[in-house]
């Protein structure tokens, strides 16, 4: 959604411009909405304000103001000090510390707030003096005004003085039990700060946190979840009792709480709900599969056995959702219409990694709606859209109009849009395919502002043609589009097109024999050395195909004439071509290393000659003359070796080291006809088919919505610092007992919490002992232990904690299932 200020600016632009004629603005541009900023009033305001605001009082006068008895003076002084803290280095405001702190006991809320702001900024530099203020702040914790209580808690936890961590912890304890939700929220937000101050307070903090997680107020619970993620994201055992209430509160939380909760729930679901799948007949409609999901859970062991016994090709795997997971996915749905783009992405992320295809499909529209936002958000949203599109392109097809590139798009935007077009291309209907191709060729035509766009568009055409789903006709059409570019005056375009054509040809050499011929003809028109080199290389690659009717030798002959005028890149390729042609000739004429066939083959060479002479004006006198000069044995030498040695001769006297070097290599390699086998191994080795994946394939592993996804591999392997990959689904049977999520009634909940608090120390010690040792709490054996361990504490009749055999596991599971069935029968 557009932010209100952007919309206001649109509305106001109109108003202003109606009032004032354009002439007065000169060159102001509409796009940046300068018109709005340059209204006379604003300009006057600006000039006036600049003078007054930057005026500064001397320190002595400031101190006087701060020491004054008049609240008004004090406030004025504090204003100045706050201004200085923002504008000046800390050293200018630090001497005022005591003078400012003195006012902390002021009854005026305004003054208090300003002192607090100063304190937050400076406490770290003067920890000892800051401690003096703690008493007063602590007193404010029991103020009658909740706003002051919340403020005091926030400031106390925000002072970065480690000594006070216990006091802060006590303050949080008090705040967590406060009547006002505002204070409770401040307490929740203070927990991470206290933890950062002194990690040893963790056990107490977790205690408060688990109480706050169950808070009834939406914005308290949301803040608690943020704090939880900050302090101990791996302690999912704290979440179990609150899971359902958190999920139900999700819709009513504020956006930031929603974000935190969605992130938490994604990890939680992965660690607590094993992915169960079920094979169903493909012909089954969606309704049927729905029915299957609802009856799942009871019979799934049987159904698995069934599917194991008869692996049928007509079946597909359908994920079966845990009812608790389904609750989460269902309560996410309204958030897809959120005005906050981050929330939308978070929901899509849940759907993508936890839900079914049907879930993803409902999220596509809201994803597209993010493209209406401001340009900065649009850019990030596009990365996420591409990521989803890589896994599920089909539903994006209908939104193709959103991916058409506008001339106003920034490079990083059109890049992603072009990629999206190529991603949906294989799934698009015929007409849309031709529209996309037309679109791409429009941008690939030279003349557009950005050379980068030309390049990307040409590559995009290549990707369209290469896609496995593309029909041969469409592929041919892509190739035609690219071939049309070869004659262009824009050398970059030509080079890029040839590059893509080369890839296309290499993927399917047999179908492109005529294409190579056509390309060779373009040699006359192509001027860019890179393009010429590319064509020559292709001709060389195809020199072995269809030896009866190959143009390679002919092309070489023509190129040999203009060799001196070629650029180095092209010269290198010409030489390579010569070598290849020669090797082919050697291979064809000497099937074995016996000398006899050479004699036998002699008659065949005139046949070649004839062929060439028929096809094109072979041998003008010039070439013949040179050849004679150079080859000393005029009448019987076949033109191909002659050409080869001619090129070698030319390269020997070239100015380029590289070229001479290469020439020496080939000369040595092909010195004796008997080494042809080695040479052909070197020169005619089959080239690997180039694979050009969509540019974003490289980021496919990154989590949707993360910054690593945007930055890509540039951020280092495995993402940026702090990037956490999605945990794998928990294995069947290792998930925590589902009854942990059962909710108690409100009083019971209290009691339960209290009980938990008393046992918390013991429980933590037990559970944390392995988890502390290895930082990853989520490794399967531990999780199993934890789940069952806490389960037994709650009073479940699970198997005792010991080494379990497979049979024990089965027994436990059956029991559970039976229990579940019972639970369902009793209407739960």
């Amino acid at each position: 959604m557009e932010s209100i200020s952007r919309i206001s600016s649109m509305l106001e632009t109109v108003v202003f411009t109606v009032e004032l004629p354009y002439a007065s603005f000169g060159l102001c541009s509409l796009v940046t909405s300068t018109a709005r900023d340059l209204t006379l009033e604003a300009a006057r305001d600006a000039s006036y304000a600049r003078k007054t605001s930057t005026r500064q009082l001397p320190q002595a006068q400031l101190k006087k103001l701060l020491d004054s008895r008049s609240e008004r003076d004090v406030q004025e002084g504090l204003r100045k000090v706050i201004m200085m803290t923002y504008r000046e280095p800390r050293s200018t405001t630090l001497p005022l510390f005591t003078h400012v702190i003195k006012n902390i006991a002021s009854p005026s809320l305004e003054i208090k707030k300003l002192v607090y702001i100063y304190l937050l900024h400076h406490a770290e530099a003067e920890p000892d003096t800051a401690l003096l203020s703690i008493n007063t702040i602590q007193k404010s914790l029991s103020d009658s005004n909740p706003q002051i209580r919340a403020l005091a808690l926030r400031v106390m936890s925000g002072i970065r003085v480690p000594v006070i961590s216990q006091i802060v912890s006590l303050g949080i304890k008090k705040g967590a039990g406060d009547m006002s939700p505002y204070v409770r929220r401040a307490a929740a937000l203070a927990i991470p700060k206290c933890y950062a101050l002194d990690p040893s307070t963790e056990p107490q903090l977790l205690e408060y946190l688990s109480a706050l997680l169950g808070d009834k107020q939406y914005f308290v619970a949301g803040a608690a979840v943020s704090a939880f993620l900050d302090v101990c994201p791996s302690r999912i055992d704290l979440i179990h009792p609150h899971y359902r209430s958190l999920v139900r509160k999700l819709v009513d939380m504020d956006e930031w709480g929603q974000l935190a909760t969605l992130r938490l729930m994604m990890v939680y679901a992965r660690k607590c709900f094993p992915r169960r799948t079920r094979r169903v007949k493909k012909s089954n409609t969606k309704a049927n599969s729905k029915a299957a999901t609802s009856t799942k859970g009871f019979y799934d062991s049987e159904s698995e056995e069934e599917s194991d016994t008869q692996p049928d090709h007509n079946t597909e795997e359908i994920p079966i959702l845990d009812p608790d997971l389904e609750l989460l996915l269902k309560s996410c749905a309204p958030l897809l219409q959120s005005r906050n783009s981050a929330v939308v992405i978070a929901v899509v992320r849940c759907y993508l990694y936890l839900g079914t295809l049907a879930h993803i499909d409902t999220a596509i529209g809201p994803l597209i709606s993010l493209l209406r936002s401001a340009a900065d958000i649009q850019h990030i949203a596009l990365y996420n859209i591409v990521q989803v599109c890589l896994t599920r392109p089909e539903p994006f097809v209908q939104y193709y109009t959103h991916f058409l590139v506008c001339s106003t798009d920034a490079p990083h935007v059109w890049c992603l849009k072009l990629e999206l077009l190529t991603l949906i291309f294989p799934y698009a209907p015929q007409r849309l395919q031709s529209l996309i191709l037309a679109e791409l060729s429009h941008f690939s035509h030279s003349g557009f502002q950005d050379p980068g766009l030309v390049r990307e568009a040409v590559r995009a055409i290549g990707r369209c043609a290469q896609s496995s789903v593309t029909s041969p006709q469409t592929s041919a059409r892509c190739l035609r589009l690219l071939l049309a570019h070869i004659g262009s005056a824009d050398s970059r375009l030509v080079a890029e097109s040839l590059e893509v054509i080369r890839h296309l040809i290499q993927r399917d050499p047999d179908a492109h024999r005529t294409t190579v011929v056509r390309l060779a003809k373009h040699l006359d028109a192509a001027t860019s050395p890179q393009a010429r080199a590319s064509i020559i290389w292709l001709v060389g690659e195809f020199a072995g195909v269809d030896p009866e009717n190959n143009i390679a030798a002919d092309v070489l002959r023509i190129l040999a004439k203009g060799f001196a005028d070629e650029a180095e890149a092209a010269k290198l390729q010409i030489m390579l071509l010569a070598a290849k042609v020669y090797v082919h000739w050697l291979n064809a004429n000497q099937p074995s290393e016996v000398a006899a066939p050479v004699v036998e083959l002699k008659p065949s060479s005139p046949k070649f000659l004839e062929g060439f002479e028929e096809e094109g004006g072979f041998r003008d006198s010039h070439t013949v003359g040179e050849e004679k000069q150079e080859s000393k044995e005029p009448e019987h030498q076949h033109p191909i070796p002659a050409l080869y040695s001619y090129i070698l001769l030319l390269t020997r006297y070239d100015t380029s080291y590289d070229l001479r070097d290469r020439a020496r290599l080939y000369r040595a390699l092909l010195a004796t006809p008997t080494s042809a086998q080695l040479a052909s191994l070197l020169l005619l080795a089959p080239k690997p088919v180039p694979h050009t994946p969509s540019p974003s394939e490289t980021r496919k592993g990154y989590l949707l919505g993360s910054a690593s996804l945007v930055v890509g591999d540039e951020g280092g392997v495995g993402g940026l610092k702090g990037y956490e990959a999605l945990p794998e689904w928990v294995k069947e049977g290792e998930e925590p007992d589902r009854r942990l999520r059962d909710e108690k009634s409100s009083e019971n909940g209290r009691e339960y919490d209290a009980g938990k608090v008393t046992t918390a120390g013991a429980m933590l010690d037990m559970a944390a002992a392995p988890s502390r040792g290895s930082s990853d709490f989520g490794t399967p054996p531990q999780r199993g232990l934890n789940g069952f361990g806490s389960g037994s504490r709650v009073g479940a009749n699970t198997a005792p904690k010991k080494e379990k055999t497979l049979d024990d596991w089965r027994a436990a599971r059956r029991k559970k299932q039976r229990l579940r069935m019972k639970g369902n029968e009793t209407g739960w």
Partner: protein
Amino acid sequence: MSAIEALYIFDEHNTLLLEHVYRSRPLEAKVLLPLYLSHSSPRPSLIYLPNTNPSTLVYSIIQDQLLFLSPCSTDTEPLQVLEFLHRVADALEDFLGSPLLASKIETSYDVVAQLLNEMCDGGLVSCTEPNALRDVVEAPSWMNKLLGGVGLPSTTPSSLTPSNSSSFNLSRPQLPRPTSNTLSSVPWRRANVRHTSNELYVDIVETLHITLAPSGRPLSALAHGTIAFTAKVSGIPELLLYLSCPGGIANTIALPVFHPCVRLARWRERPGEFSFVPPDGRFVLAGYEVDLLGGDYLSSFTKESKANSQPRLNIPARATVTTSLGPQGAEFEVKLLLSPRFKNASSSSSASSSSSFPRATGLGTRSGSAFSSAGTTSQPSIDEVVVHVPLPVSVRNVADLRVSRGEATYAPGDVGIEWRISSREVSALMASSHGGSIEATATLRGTVIGTSTDDDSSENPSTSLSMPNPYDYNDDEPTPYQSSELLPKPQDERSLQQHNARKVKMNKVLMPSCATVSFSVKGWLPSGIKVESLNVDQKRSKGLGAGVQPYKGVKYLCVSRRGIEGRC
């Protein structure tokens, strides 16, 4: 994990206005700025700086020429940070007044500091709702300056104004503000709102994004709509806003997003009905988009094969570009076409016009009388027409720039030509066209001049061009150039033609490939959406005196910001 580490604000000259650190020790602003600026413009909103210590992600937005930067040393959710930056900008604008100017921030650092501390607590975003912020932070105002720090319990400026209406029926006695805010039952609305004059305004803004193919056929036509709402009503009002549209709202509005106050269930049940308790003040109620071509446009247009049989879009202004004119192909012409419907004295009613949309099949009956009552839409007129012609980077200069109307500016080195037509000239232009259904046109002509190296580089191709084609492999296509009929011609004429042909080819690279049009039309929406009614549900509202009827206003605006793109 995802935390806001710091916020830096720079003014339009990139001088630091504000540096606010929330947690840890992020890169300092003076270190960060040059690194940010070293990226070439347009800069993406997320830049990764691997070579700093710690390696840093920089998030940036630009609002009212102020640059907001936020560095992050760990992986965060980019959209979360960017949304936060936008919220900060919104809140600052809400408190300091719009537009947001550097001077305004400088004069009220105390307010800004309070806001920043409230919005984000130790790196975790805590509260961004403008109304909730109003409860805890005091906006700078004249009253505030006069009373400055007398120690009175602070009050909002609106409640300080003398309330002369006696019909206020407060449900509870007035409490000191901080206590009362905890009692606010609606998180986005502050408690105890009181206004002397109750007003409600609905502004619907639609931004057009239309791409026209060279043939004039629209490739895509989207209108992005935003409903901005201004509520200045006392108490806790329950509002009902009904939208209507020829063809039905459900078929028109696609992909809506809503302010949290909108009851989603009601919308799903009956699209077009917004039921909500508004925040106090100005906010965006909803956003939506309209595909002006309709969903099955693509499949329909190729079946009919004729371009002119297309349902025509009603575009207020569009531009066409013709390139490669003149003997050397160096000239181009841009034609601006203004729809006669939007002349200042247009008599056509907007309701009937919306029937020309392709989607609006079978609207007919409802459209006529219902909307004409709005009155504001009777004479939509077009304003602020600007045409941008982006030019390739290789263009060195544009010679001979002529326009039939308005004023075109181009300086060598610019990325494009800007052609402005003032509203006075637009109306003159409209008047000169013969009314009726003919579009008013204005033209711009120019000659591009490329870089001077053209002639040197053209030597090589000329030699290769003139080389006769010695062999022929034409199995599937005719010779692409130099067909044999050229050969018998006299040498000089032929070379001249060749020269020109080559020139045309060279100049083709220099041609503009599109032109974009910006404009605004007041009182008209391309989607045809209308506000049917806006009611206060008296039974469910609290705090609004019985019989108080708020003043209601509706405004429609259609904007294109380089959104109409004509390709060639």
